Each structure stands twice: as structure tokens, then as C-alpha cells.
């Protein structure tokens, strides 16, 4: 399938994201657009605020290491079995980045409030935690449904990313993208002001007109721009398509432990013309 004429390049998409924007990204097995991540680093984006939905790994770590972020709201940044996320850890320990600690379902709830256009969303739990104690934007109210007894419940504000950014399995010529069962990408697209998407493959036909594809499709009303990026989640996985590149991730963790190592990694894998290894 030819790439649709309306498609942009990943670098063109990155140029649409102004410094200071609030961007939302899915967790590492949810269709991460590493291609747009690399493009953001290439364009030397600054002061971005990152919302991880609800956690992240190399994507957040690279953006932090490259100095693109002023702030991060997250439930966790980790390289999983490959160890801690070196740039994240260093930046937080050095106070180089504003951290807004959350817990996974709270981030979903903040986005669901935005998705529904409701000003807040209640969530059980969290009470008595230092997460709550450090989030002046999260409030505690009495459950209005409880009668005759106290029942405190946390309420979370709607959060609307300027851009939701993810990598989808398919895109078509009509502006649709297909994420299958990755509901966090659907949520991100619905909750954000606009979505910016890279796609692995071009779908022959209209995804909205295929009964079987419809449930996993995000239509153009939510999608601002699409880029064709085969292996666009590399070195992370794209479910049903390719596994993550464990050797590469292991090497990244090692490299990112020093500023020089990180710079060399970025030079080779981000600024070099051909981004995928």
C-alpha cells in the first residue's frame, strides 16, 4: 500500500508540538511512538510536560536525558527487568525535573474525566498516602451517596493533554488508525486535545467500514496527524507484530548511566539519519 498523501513525517509531527506542551504517552507495551520520541529529541524540544499513561520506560527516560522535559506526571518510570531508568533517577535526585507522583488508576481517572468533559472523577484508595499529600490538585470530599456516616473519597481533576502520542498497528487513507485492544490509546486520543500517531502499516481500505476493525479504530475526529513509521515502536514491542529488542534495551540502560554514554547513544540512534537499528 502506498503511504497516503495526507501523512506527515515523524519530524514534521514533532515540529507541531511546541515547547511547553503537555503530552500524554501510553505504557511500554501499549504502542509507544519511539519514532516521534526520537524526532522530539532531534528538534531539541524543551520544557515539555509529560504524562505517562500510566507508566513509562525508555521513552520517558530518553526525553529526560535529552533535556526535553520540565515536568513529569507518572505512576512509575522503570526499565523493568533491565534495571532502573538512569536519566529519570538522576534527574529526580538532582532536582532537575518537577515530579508529580501518581498511582496508575488515578492517571486513568484524570483522563477519563477529560474524556467525558466532566471536571473531576472520584477514586477509592489513595487516602493517607504521601502521593495524596503531595498533590494539592487532588482533593478529598465526603462521598455524597453515604448517608449518616463519614466516607472520605479522593476526587481527581480532569487532565487534558495538548497532544496524545502513540504508535498504532494500522493507519488508512481516511485518517483512521487502528490500535486494537489498546484501550489506553483510545482513552488518550479521546482525552487529549488532539492525537499524533505513527503507524506500523497502511491498511488497504477504510477501517471504519470494516465491522471487525471498527472496535479498535480511532477515527479522524480525534487524530490531528499521522506518520508512516515501520518499526516505529522499536526498541519497544508492538503487540501482535514484534517483540521488544531486549539486547538494545539492556545496552541503553548501560549507556544512559553516564552523561557521555547517553550522548553517544543519542548521537547514534537519534541524530543518525536512519533511526531504527
Amino acid at each position, binding site marked *: 500500500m502506498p503511504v497516503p498523501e495526507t501523512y506527515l513525517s515523524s519530524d514534521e509531527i514533532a515540529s507541531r508540538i511546541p515547547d511547553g506542551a503537555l503530552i500524554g504517552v*501510553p*505504557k511500554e507495551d*501499549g504502542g509507544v511512538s519511539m519514532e516521534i520520541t526520537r524526532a522530539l529529541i532531534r528538534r531539541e524540544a524543551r520544557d515539555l510536560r509529560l504524562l505517562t*499513561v*500510566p*507508566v513509562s520506560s525508555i521513552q520517558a527516560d530518553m526525553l529526560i536525558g535529552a533535556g526535553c522535559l520540565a515536568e513529569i506526571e*507518572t*505512576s*512509575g*518510570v*522503570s526499565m*523493568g*527487568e533491565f534495571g*532502573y*531508568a538512569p536519566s*529519570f*533517577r538522576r534527574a*529526580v*535526585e*538532582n*532536582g532537575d525535573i518537577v*515530579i508529580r*507522583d*501518581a*498511582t*496508575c*488508576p*488515578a492517571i*486513568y481517572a484524570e483522563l*477519563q474525566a477529560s474524556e467525558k468533559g466532566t471536571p473531576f472523577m472520584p*477514586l*477509592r*484508595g*489513595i*487516602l*493517607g*498516602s*504521601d*502521593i*495524596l499529600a*503531595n498533590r494539592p490538585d487532588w482533593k478529598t470530599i465526603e*462521598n455524597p451517596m453515604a448517608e449518616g*456516616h*463519614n*466516607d*472520605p*473519597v479522593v476526587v481527581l481533576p480532569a487532565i487534558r493533554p495538548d497532544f496524545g502520542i502513540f504508535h498504532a498497528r494500522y493507519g488508512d487513507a481516511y485518517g483512521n488508525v487502528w490500535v486494537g*485492544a*489498546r*484501550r*489506553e490509546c*483510545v*482513552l488518550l486520543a479521546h482525552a487529549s486535545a488532539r492525537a499524533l500517531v505513527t503507524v506500523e502499516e497502511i491498511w488497504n481500505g477504510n477501517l471504519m467500514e470494516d465491522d471487525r476493525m471498527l472496535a479498535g479504530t480511532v477515527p479522524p475526529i480525534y487524530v490531528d496527524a499521522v506518520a508512516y513509521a515501520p518499526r516505529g515502536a522499536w526498541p519497544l514491542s508492538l503487540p501482535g507484530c514484534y517483540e521488544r529488542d531486549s539486547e538494545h534495551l539492556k545496552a541503553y540502560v548501560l549507556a544512559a548511566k553516564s552523561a557521555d554514554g547517553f550522548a553517544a547513544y543519542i548521537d547514534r540512534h537519534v541524530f543518525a539519519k536512519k533511526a531504527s537499528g
Partner: protein
Amino acid sequence: MEYSREELLICAVARMLDGCRNIAVGTASPIPGSAALLVQALSDGAARASILGSNIHNPFNDGGPELFDRAGQGRVDAFFLGGGQIDGEGNINLVSAGPYPQPDTRFPGSFGSGYLYFSVPRVILFREEHSRRVFVDKVDFISAPGWSPPDVHRPGGPYALITSLCIFMYDKERHRFRLDGLLPGATLEEVRDNTGFDFDCPNDIGPVPPPEPERLILIRSRIAGEIAETYPEFSRTRLGWHG
């Protein structure tokens, strides 16, 4: 019957999961995963294991929020959590050691703990490193508290704590851990020396009971194969899987 340390722990965890219908297991958790699959295999369809990262042993399909939604509904009976620090009241810290927000050591973050610790009735804490650095008197940051005042809606909380030396059970009334059994090679003195919090200890503390032989056979046959889908290396080196 000879058995490995992993097999011993799988059986110990499986006992803790007795009667659970929905057991969810997060990332990097081969022992809890194996225990959950064992309970599922023994339950004749009554128990379901949800292994994060598995394509087969995963009863969910609706994306990230689903596990939390099901836990909120009371449809998740058991879950596993770790902690960079854990204290004697069961408070867990997955965020950082030292002053917040600019700490001495930053950990990854709280993940789902701030919610699941409240909503899942049996949360089993798993933390290999048994040291005073980890098991502290008071955590530096509460990702999730071990207990809550009576007006807080809280069906969930800590159930047990498993370390490289021993197993503690959590006493919900007293908000304290009680030593339940020692792992092979560990002594009570060693546990005391390496634990920064005060805990209860019965006079007759003994070893963690050995695996039930029929369960051991099941682990080495069916469970080794099932867990290998998600943790092939673990299954090969620890459970003798030849798949």
C-alpha cells in the same frame, strides 16, 4: 522429596491464595505467577490466574484501566506488591529514600499500589532483600498505608510479607507483622538483626512447611510449562522445564 527454594515458596504462596477466585500477578513475578497458576490448576475452574505479560493466562482484554476497575469492584481477590521500603505497620514505599521530592535514592514510583493496596483483600508483599535498608521503622514516603482509620472504605490491605529469610503474616487488628516461618538456612536471630521494625514472634517459630508432594509434581509438570510462556528462563533454571 527434594525441592528447590522456588518450589518451597510457590507452595507457601499457594497456601496464602487458598479460596481466592481471581488472582492477579504483575510484572517480574515468576514465583507469584507460578503459585497463581498452581491454585488455578487445583481449583477445577473456580480460580482464575491473571498473569501480566501472558497472552494465554489473562482473563482481561480491555486495556490498562481494566485490572483497576475489576479490583475496585471487588473482583480481584489477591495481588502482589513490592517496596523499596516497608515498615512494621505495613506501609509501603515505592517512591524514594530520603527527603521528597528530591531524595537520596529515587525508586521507579508507586504504580498501582496506592489503589490496589486498598481494594484487593489479600495483598502479598514480596521483597527478596531482607535488610534494615528495606525493612525500616518508618518509611520515608507512603505510597500506600498499611492500614486506615475506620471511616475509610478499605476492603483491601497487606496479607503477608515474603523475604529471602522468612514469611511474615500481617495482623490487621494490630497493624503489625507476625513472623510465620523461617526459610531454609535462616535463623530468628538473623531475621531480628536485619529487620528495622518491631514484629511479633511466636515462641515456637519453625520452618516454612515443605511443599505438598502432589503439588510439587504438578509444579514440575503442568505449571512449569504454563509459566514458561511468560518466564521461560525462570522455568528452565528453577523448575527444570525442558520445553
